[in-house]
């Protein structure tokens, strides 16, 4: 299952074709502006680039590196155009499964924080 690699070449298609991403028109010809796989859907010609930044879909699994620690969230480098965000609320913390319902505070978020604090003590970093 290999890709066919197309380096920017002259395309001998004429104007009746519509050009999509990764193409440009020069001298009445559609040319590829990026190296990639050509995709032709009816009259639309577009190039899907080989070397592009990651564009995320919901439900994708990613591996990332933490670049920044901010208030209530982390910034993660995932090779996309912008750093991804990991919210503190979106993280499963140790002891999360055995939440002691006896711990309660004024608001729900504050009660979560108190639980975090009591469970930090046994983490060795």
């Amino acid at each position, binding site marked *: *299952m290999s*890709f066919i690699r197309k380096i920017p070449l002259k395309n001998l298609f004429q104007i009746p074709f519509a050009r999509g991403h990764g193409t440009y028109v020069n001298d009445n010809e559609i040319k590829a502006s990026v190296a990639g796989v050509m995709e032709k859907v009816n009259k639309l010609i577009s190039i899907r680039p080989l070397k592009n930044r*990651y564009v995320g879909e919901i439900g994708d*699994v990613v591996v990332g590196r933490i670049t920044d620690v901010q208030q209530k969230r982390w910034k993660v480098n995932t*090779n996309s155009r912008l750093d*991804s965000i990991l919210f503190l609320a979106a993280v499963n913390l*140790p*002891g999360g499964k055995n939440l002691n319902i006896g711990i309660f505070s004024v608001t729900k978020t*504050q009660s979560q924080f108190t639980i975090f604090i009591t469970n930090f003590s046994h983490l060795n970093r």
Partner: protein
Amino acid sequence: MRRRNTEDEQMMRKFLQEGDLISAEVQNVYTDGSLSLHTRSLKYGKLSQGVLVKVFPSLIKRCKTHFHNLACGASVILGNNGFIWISPTINTDVEGSGGFTQNLNEPVPRSDREVIVRLRNCILALAQCKMALYDTSIQYAYDESLKYEIDELLKQEAIFDLAFLTQHRLRIQDEQ
């Protein structure tokens, strides 16, 4: 009971610091293209011992699952963003930590290390020849690479040979 910003940050730093590697799932995509991630499952979390390989995102084939325990004796996480994490085989029955405790002290045996490095070189060879990466292609590439020494896999002839043989084997399998 007022929480100050520095206390929050120190708390967060105890979990994840700059430079840590995590596996996560994309929860949301904002209009500007940035992603928000979540690790709301025990299989996601901080990654401890292993090797990170960066390839182009377009080479990662979309599959049902991206966590694979390969037959050769290592685990692989194929991130859709092109970051691949190779680590010693994860015992799936070890649970409970929520994925945030790091096991940096346990030494990895040499045989496991060799499997991991060989896998890394195979993945880089496939990536250089622009072949799609998924569990089957990586497993076949590993099998075909056993005739070479691990350092030989970095040479051009070995890379082309490996990609050619893997492609051949995948084609045979497709035809069946």
